[in-house]
């Protein structure tokens, strides 16, 4: 039966799941679910995932959603070693804290800027929302102080998740150059994360184009 990933390339969390599949060398059947066309609300998909969100992954009999739960699951099951998601409780906890920061702070602040533009007809970005995102990127810069990667010396799913999120807002035109640790780390990720161009950059560019096309000039 194999692994199926229900995926929407412009979606950062969805790209995170796909990138983890690539990093583990997994053969995955990718099924596109177009969120712009509300395909996630089709009955067949709601049957698979009652929360009707992407990414969703099926692996044999089991169905998993939430990108970061998918990422952890894939490494737990298919990782040849635990480098992408260490088993040691302290190392794992740091990866988890970064993943939760992405899910609960960074990505919501990116979404707060982009969702109203994409779906609610807004053409301007509130200064408060801009400041909020800058604060989150500032925290990333602190997390990276003295570290090669987000959670320490090695690439982990924390890097993949956060790189996918950040690539979306960078594709819209956000400037991260003031954050020297983040800028260096992001450049490194785009070279070192397996399959980055086709599994992440292409989709991020689609996202960026969609948001920019609806924004008034000079907003970012």
């Amino acid at each position, binding site marked *: 039966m194999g692994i199926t990933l229900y995926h929407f390339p412009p979606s950062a969390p969805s790209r995170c799941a796909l990138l983890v599949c690539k990093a583990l060398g997994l053969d995955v059947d990718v099924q596109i679910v177009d969120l712009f066309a509300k395909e996630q609300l089709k009955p067949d998909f709601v049957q698979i995932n009652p929360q009707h969100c992407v990414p969703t992954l099926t692996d044999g009999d089991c169905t998993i959603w939430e990108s970061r*739960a998918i990422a952890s699951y894939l490494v*737990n099951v298919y990782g040849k070693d635990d480098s992408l998601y260490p088993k040691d409780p*302290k190392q794992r*906890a740091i990866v988890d804290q970064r993943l*939760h*920061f992405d899910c609960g702070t960074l990505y919501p602040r990116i979404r707060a800027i982009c969702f109203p533009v994409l779906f609610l007809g807004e053409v301007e970005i509130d200064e408060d929302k801009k400041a909020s995102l800058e604060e989150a990127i500032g*925290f990333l810069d602190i997390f990276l102080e003295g570290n090669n990667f987000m959670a320490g010396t090695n690439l982990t799913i924390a890097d993949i998740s956060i790189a996918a999120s950040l690539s979306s807002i960078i594709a819209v035109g956000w400037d991260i150059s003031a954050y020297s640790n983040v800028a260096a780390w992001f450049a490194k990720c785009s070279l070192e994360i397996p399959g980055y161009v086709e599994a992440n950059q292409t989709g991020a560019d689609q996202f960026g184009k969609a948001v920019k096309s609806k924004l008034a000039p000079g907003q970012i």
Partner: protein
Amino acid sequence: MTIDFYYIPGSAPCRAVMLTAIALGVELNYKLTDVMEGKQFEPEFLKINPQHTIPTINDNGFSLWESRAIMGYLVNKYGKDDSLYPKDPVKRAVVDQRMFFDLGTLYQRLADYYYPVYFAGAAFDPEKKTKIMDALQFLDTFLSKSTYAAGEQLTIADLTLVATVTTLEVVDFDLSSFKNIIRWLDVVKKNAPGYEEANGKNVLAFKALVDNLMKGR
């Protein structure tokens, strides 16, 4: 050997960590960190957590924040068994999905709706209330399939979700249309170890805080 725990009693994420520690028999060294008074910005605390949030733990030199990362860490490190956070990858993935649902959807929407009103003087936005209803509907659906949030055993998914849902309960959010949530609340309140001490009485501190903030508004 206790673990330093920086918290305030009313905070849902803090209560979720307290529920986990009690269930594991892990002793916490409680350090009240009044975020309403800006204590999280004091230099000593910033050294431990540069993101200056609560809950934060310091386990004998190892500092960690994000409630659900703390909860997972406590079970992974101190659990006598894995019942609260199963090691089996499929079971763990379900717990993880429920935890991320709480973090990124349910608790997120509670905060989006209530916190600008309580803490920043804004007016209630009815659209944000609808988003909470939608999230509760999802939770109700998850709970239609099992006794607990992630299966037939109590896990940290239940502990984080009960902290969130009781926060809604205590500010009189109407949960009555969500039959599975009502059933589950009762089961968790009866079966989560130390429920009354960790959450039952501390969620009232949240109510007291918001009642005070909303006085005369």
